[in-house]
């Protein structure tokens, strides 16, 4: 009998804790003002402080520099933006309007397309300091994607958008860390191209933000002791 009491007490405690955690999580979610979006679509680590990374991302009109599927982003008012994707093949360019639901400098941006848009998208991008760092930022994008009345889904986003978003984040990292999107003889073309120069390479985005190298050459690695480096002995 005593034993059963004991078990029941533990069970009650566990349920109580679980319940508290759930309530806590719901409160946290409500506080952040976003519904559950599903699994992370893509992530990247950037060697700059969250505030700087956020600010570069928040400059919406410049997103097409590294989001290669976009033609343009126009800022209509403080909450509304108009996004235009590049046409696929000979098709027409698709546009949609989105609303910025949440915008905490250096932390998070949440967006949602207008209900009547053909392209349905909802998403959140977060900027967090990497563990133990005072400078490195972890960027996470969670998003849902869909068409018209079917609404947005995170499954569709993972299926169709993840490779694109991963590429976008890789280029975003290049822009923030090195000042521009790096091109190679092969990558400067839309279609597969040999690694040799060509006259018909895609024109480069004009933007270059000077960003001098921060790494030190020749020194500073733990294994680099034999040549008189300042590494750990």
């Amino acid at each position, binding site marked *: 009998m005593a034993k059963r009491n004991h078990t029941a007490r533990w069970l009650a405690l566990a349920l109580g804790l679980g319940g508290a955690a759930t309530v806590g999580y719901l409160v946290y979610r409500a506080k952040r003002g976003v519904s559950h979006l599903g699994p992370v679509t893509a992530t990247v*680590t950037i*060697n700059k402080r969250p505030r700087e990374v956020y600010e570069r991302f928040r400059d919406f009109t410049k997103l097409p520099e590294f989001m290669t599927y976009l033609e343009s982003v126009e800022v209509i008012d403080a909450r509304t933006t108009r996004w235009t994707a590049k046409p696929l093949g000979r098709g027409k360019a698709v546009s949609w309007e989105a609303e910025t639901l949440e915008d905490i400098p250096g932390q998070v941006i949440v967006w949602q397309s207008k209900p009547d848009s053909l392209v349905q998208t909802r998403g959140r991008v977060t900027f967090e300091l990497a563990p133990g760092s005072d400078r*490195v930022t972890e960027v996470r994008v969670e998003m849902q994607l869909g068409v018209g009345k079917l609404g947005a889904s995170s499954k569709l986003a993972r299926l169709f958008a993840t*490779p694109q978003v*991963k*590429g976008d984040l*890789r280029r975003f*990292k*290049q822009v923030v*860390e*090195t*000042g*521009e*999107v*790096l*091109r*190679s*003889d*092969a*990558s*400067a073309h839309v279609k*597969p*191209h*040999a*690694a*040799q*120069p*060509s*006259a018909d*390479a895609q024109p*480069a985005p004009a933007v*270059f933000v*000077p*960003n*001098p*190298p*921060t*790494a*030190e*050459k*020749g*020194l*500073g*690695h733990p*294994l*680099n*002791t*034999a*040549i*008189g*480096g300042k590494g750990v002995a």
Partner: protein
Amino acid sequence: MRANVFKGKKHVAVEHVPDPQILNARDAIVKVTATTICGSDLHLYNGFMPGMQKGDILGHEFMGEVVEVGKGVKNLKPGDRVVVPFCIACGNCESCEMGLFACCENSNPTGWIPEKLMGHATCGCFGYSHLTGGFAGGQAEYVRVPFADFGPLKVDKALSDHQVLFLSDILPTAFMGADFCEITPNKVICVMGCGPVGQLAIASAKALGAEKIIAVDKVPYRLRMAVEKAGATDVINFEDQPLQETLRDLTAGRGPDAIIECVGMEAVGTGMQFAMDKVKQTARVQMDRPIAVRDSILACRSGGIVSILGVYAGFVDKFPLGSMMNRGLTLRTGQCHVHRYMKPLLEKIEQGVLDPSFVVSHEMNLDETPKGYDMFMHKRDEVMKIILRA
């Protein structure tokens, strides 16, 4: 301009291609004055590296004269004589700040390809397949050099091309392999493979104070150079002598304290295992022939270090993990973090402590590159390192 391009398996040709242009603000265009054929180019030539495309310009070890710089390059000007690291590094990412330049996170625009094969992206390299970015290589009259404000090393005209060219790849690579070995005079070092990197690994181990260095190869002229020029104290020709037993004999049963593997995915060996590896690699069941790595692990002293410099691309079979685990070996490897070693090694060359020029065996015109590949592959005319002049 003229450039040596990949046409298909065992087929390269010097062709006229468009001149490179500035594609990014931090680019420079370098007029190549001297370049080489690297042992790792043979893996591309023989069709064992994935991600090659017809028309790719090869070559990753080169030096030259700056002819044009992008608006973001302030430290170089036309006329500067530079040696260019084969691996491309931005100098801004976390990996670069940690000195892991060959793991640069920004220099590979086609990084999604190695991500699929290797789990994470590699850095970009010149002329080394679309896995490493799809950058045109240095076996050409001109090359576009990305992140030119960070990579290229300016060198004084007083030093000859033969002395400084190898700062681009094989000297830092060989030196890093020796640096991995935590060399002290009482440690026995073994170098597997006596091609150009192996020769310089022996010279580096000697410069770092090793007193006993065992060189392993099967080509007599290479073993001869290892002793006469590089500084090996003992040699093993594994076709004439059983490798494991001879290494044990030379070290009174202990095995070498550290082994530098300078062979790579096209290793040759003796016996059944080699035949199996060759069949599997040809059938594309296995990407690499890891014979030298297996031998190194089995031969190394318990608690010792195996330093892998040879190039590998994918997955291997019969990896002696049990030997490695039970005997507490440390395995160190990597594409060379060239930027880390260039300047300190240039100083060593200036001081006369190291002189890599002894590996040069031939000079050719760029037009003769295909002949050079064939000669290097078949080890004709006692070839060691071929220098190409545009």
